[in-house]
């Protein structure tokens, strides 16, 4: 698989226990080094192509996640890192937990694990890159790719 561009990554902790956060950060450091794919962890949503969300969402982070997602330029992909981001995980039954990230924004790649292992995360990023390429091609072929996002936030209550 060729990686045509250098996608930048935005990480947000929606309500994670930190375990996945430090593994996301560890993936960018020398042992795992996603930066060799040209990937940089940026803090600015307007610079980012890939959004990595750790932890499930609650009422307070819902708006933050939505806002960050809407600030990212098209095309963009979302990775739910860790089992909590996928569906709420061990905290599913807690009163302050709304569920996985896909209840708020559309998720392209789900990476399970508690905590997510850097190897798994890198695999998820590589899968996300393929999707990003597809979306980019789709954008070239169509005037707009709005149609992809019709279902955005469908699961939201």
């Amino acid at each position, binding site marked *: 698989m060729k990686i045509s561009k250098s996608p930048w990554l935005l990480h947000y*902790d929606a*309500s994670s226990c930190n375990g996945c956060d430090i*593994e996301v*950060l560890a993936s960018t450091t020398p042992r795992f080094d996603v930066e060799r794919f040209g990937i940089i962890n940026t803090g600015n949503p307007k610079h980012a192509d890939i959004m990595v969300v750790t932890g499930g969402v609650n009422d307070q982070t819902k708006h933050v996640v939505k806002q960050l997602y809407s600030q990212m330029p098209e095309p963009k992909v979302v990775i739910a890192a860790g089992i909590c981001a996928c569906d709420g995980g061990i905290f599913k039954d807690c009163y302050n937990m709304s569920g996985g990230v896909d209840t708020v924004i559309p998720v392209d790649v789900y990476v399970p694990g508690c*905590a997510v292992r850097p190897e798994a995360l890198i695999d998820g990023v590589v899968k996300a890159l393929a999707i990003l390429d597809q979306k980019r091609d789709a954008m070239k072929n169509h005037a707009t790719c709005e149609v992809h996002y019709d279902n955005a936030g469908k699961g939201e209550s």
Partner: protein
Amino acid sequence: MSSRSVIPFGPQHPVLPEPIHLDLVLEDEKVVEAVPSIGFVHRGLESLVTKKDFKEMVYVAERICGICSFGHGFGYCDAVEHIMDIQVTERANYLRTILFELSRMHSHILWLGLMADAFGFENLFMDTWRIREKVLDMLEAATGGRVIFSILDVGGLRKDIPDDMLKGFLPVLKDIEKELAVDIRTFLNDGAVKSRLCGVGVLSAEEVENLGCCGPFLRGSGVKRDSRKLGYAAYDDIDFDIVTSTDCDTYGRTYVRANEILQSIRIIRQAVEKIPAGEVMVPVKGFPNGEHMTRLEQPRGEACYYVKANGTKFLERMRVRTPTFANIPALTQTLQGCELADVPILVVAIDPCISCTER
């Protein structure tokens, strides 16, 4: 005449790995007031006591925080063991001490990296995290997990760690000590680094006591108190120093954390030397009934675990007071009067662990 403006800081901010929000009231570049608001990662896991039994709660306790997970599991188990009057075996106590210190090492090295990132020294950040991977390798070999271990259980440990593996840790520790010395030298002697740390966020010994601080924040202001001296697990049999600094600023806190890593290595060496043979698990019968509060020293400071049980499978209450929670009043204090550019450094200086704090 300057006018006041309010700048929101967080929850998503380049320097923050975790969401905390601060409303900073500024007069030009000077912060005159900082009001924290938390709750972004509040999950309400203390309410799970009604849904998960006291043994399953060990897993929940470990997931209070992914950085200090071992300590949280340990504190919870210790409180339940006290209530049920369970005497953990010596070997389990020693293994718990070794794992606890390995966690402390990885947490402190992680903090050094985040601090380097906060003052813009990317290379130092990467190098400390490279070294940290060696600690994680040891933890993974011993427990199977990198950040969340699930090796603890009420009554001891779920599996033994063989002696030859423990002996194998010693040369790795020597390596880490050697490599870390280079980084620590940069942290403590480099002029550019010192210019960002010295004199930033000064709190006197009296102030930190009044603000209820704990951990390296307390010791960085010259107060000699470390809950490990309470003598839980195997700390009673092991010789180590409480590292303090009289600098009372961010440099002092960095000094304390850097040297505590070296003390941890010292503790692990002694523990590996002294560890007795034997079982690691004692049988647990019945359900807990009673209440207990355990205090112990997490990497970030003293943590309290309060457990109240009523003789059934489900507990009545589990409550954790985490070190970051205790350090928040001090954070708001140090932010007052600082410059806006120093805010990230001061926030990182308490080693914030927000998911601990909000649970």
